[in-house]
């Protein structure tokens, strides 16, 4: 393995690194928003929309991101929906992540103790007030660990973007190997780059989980 080769490839990888971060960021934010909407539809048992959300969840969770991306990038233009590779990648991540986030958030809302709900009702709170002041603050806190796990999962899923030629980290590594046959060096830098993103993030999320829990429940 040559250090010179590694050094020379750093600028290319740096670009891919930031792109991976950017795509992950938009994808995760979008997934959390979609997940909140889907889980609230389920929590409030909104007719029709709740069923749509259930169908979406099943489709999204039971198909691979690879296939989802093919659909968005190659099939959607056939029905007039055209977008750039980057937009398709982010859309795919949101489509996939939304259902995982919805499950995580809904799980948290379901995890709020029944007695908390009953004591909220007992002081005359309406269904909406109960959600706003009791169930959501506690339930969202309970769902933080699952959301955090999904964040890590979704960042790793960006590696699939390589199939629609987005120059993120994995795509760049494969590109470098294809161009220069520097397989060892490229894979080494790839692993380091993911580690730089994921290890600190994982530590931060663990800290955040503890803080959120302490804030809401005191333990």
């Amino acid at each position, binding site marked *: 393995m040559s250090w010179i080769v590694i050094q020379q490839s750093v600028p290319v990888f740096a670009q891919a690194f930031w792109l991976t971060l950017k795509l992950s960021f938009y994808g995760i934010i979008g997934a959390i928003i979609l997940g909140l909407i889907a889980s609230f539809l389920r929590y409030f048992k909104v007719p029709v929309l709740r069923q749509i959300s259930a169908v979406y969840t099943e489709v999204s969770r039971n198909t691979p991101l690879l296939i989802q991306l093919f659909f968005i990038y190659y099939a959607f233009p056939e029905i007039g929906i055209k977008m750039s590779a980057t937009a398709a990648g982010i859309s795919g991540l949101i489509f996939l992540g939304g259902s995982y986030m919805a499950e995580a958030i809904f799980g948290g809302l379901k995890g709020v103790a029944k007695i908390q709900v009953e004591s909220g009702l*007992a002081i005359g709170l309406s269904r909406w*007030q109960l959600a706003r002041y*009791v169930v959501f603050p506690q339930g969202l806190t309970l769902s933080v660990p699952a959301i955090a796990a999904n964040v890590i999962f979704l960042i790793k899923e960006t590696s699939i973007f390589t199939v629609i030629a987005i120059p993120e980290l994995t795509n760049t590594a494969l590109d470098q190997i294809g161009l220069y046959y520097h397989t060892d060096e490229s894979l080494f830098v790839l692993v380091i780059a993911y580690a730089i993103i994921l290890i600190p993030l994982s530590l931060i999320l663990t800290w955040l989980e503890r803080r959120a829990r302490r804030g809401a429940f005191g333990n």
Partner: protein
Amino acid sequence: MATPLLQVEHLEKSYGDVHILHDINLTVATGSVTVLLGPSGSGKSTLIRCLNGLEDFQSGQLTFSGEPVTPSPKVWQKLRQKIGMVFQSYDLFPNLTVLDNILLGPLKVQHRAKAEAKEQAIKLLKEVGLADYQDSYPRQLSGGQKQRIAIVRALALNPDFMLFDEVTASLDPEMVRGVLEVLRNLAQQKMTMLVVTHEMNFAREIADQVVFLEEGHILEVTPGKQFFENPQTERAQIFLNSMDF
């Protein structure tokens, strides 16, 4: 006779095929204390929960303050401001301070002025000896303190009727006294109360009437003193003998 605060007529409750409450008839006079006694599994908690809509029932009529109750989520939401309830597990909202726990109902449900509601909350906290804890979180309090605050939270809505479902059952013995003291004061202030308890000495002391329930049937409704000295049914006598007090 004045209009009773609560009247229950022919209430029937079942979960699927399991019949929990059979033909419950009960009258609670304004300003009186009714104690609900009976072995565990007799349906005491279910009955008390039917009275503020946490459980539905299949048939029967409730009349509150002379008004027939037509059960629906909206009706119950309104009525619950008049019917306070405190549960066995001290169930404060862990994400809110003591004061915010107490003010949630008065401010968000009753839309009262904050200054006035806060003044009342602090007065109530003083009465239960916890004025210093208004900014604490529930996790910083003992079980007995939490239970007293749960009572204050219910009282802050100015209810006409209070339901207490075994409020001392999960407290350490030394915490029980403080909570019972709060209930005793309420009884002296002529708050109408329905109390499920296993604290027999306390029941004897405060009960204006005792309702004795077994397997979902009311076996007897007897004035408090008389129940403990001379219950009408043999079953109640056996129950009293089995209790250690």
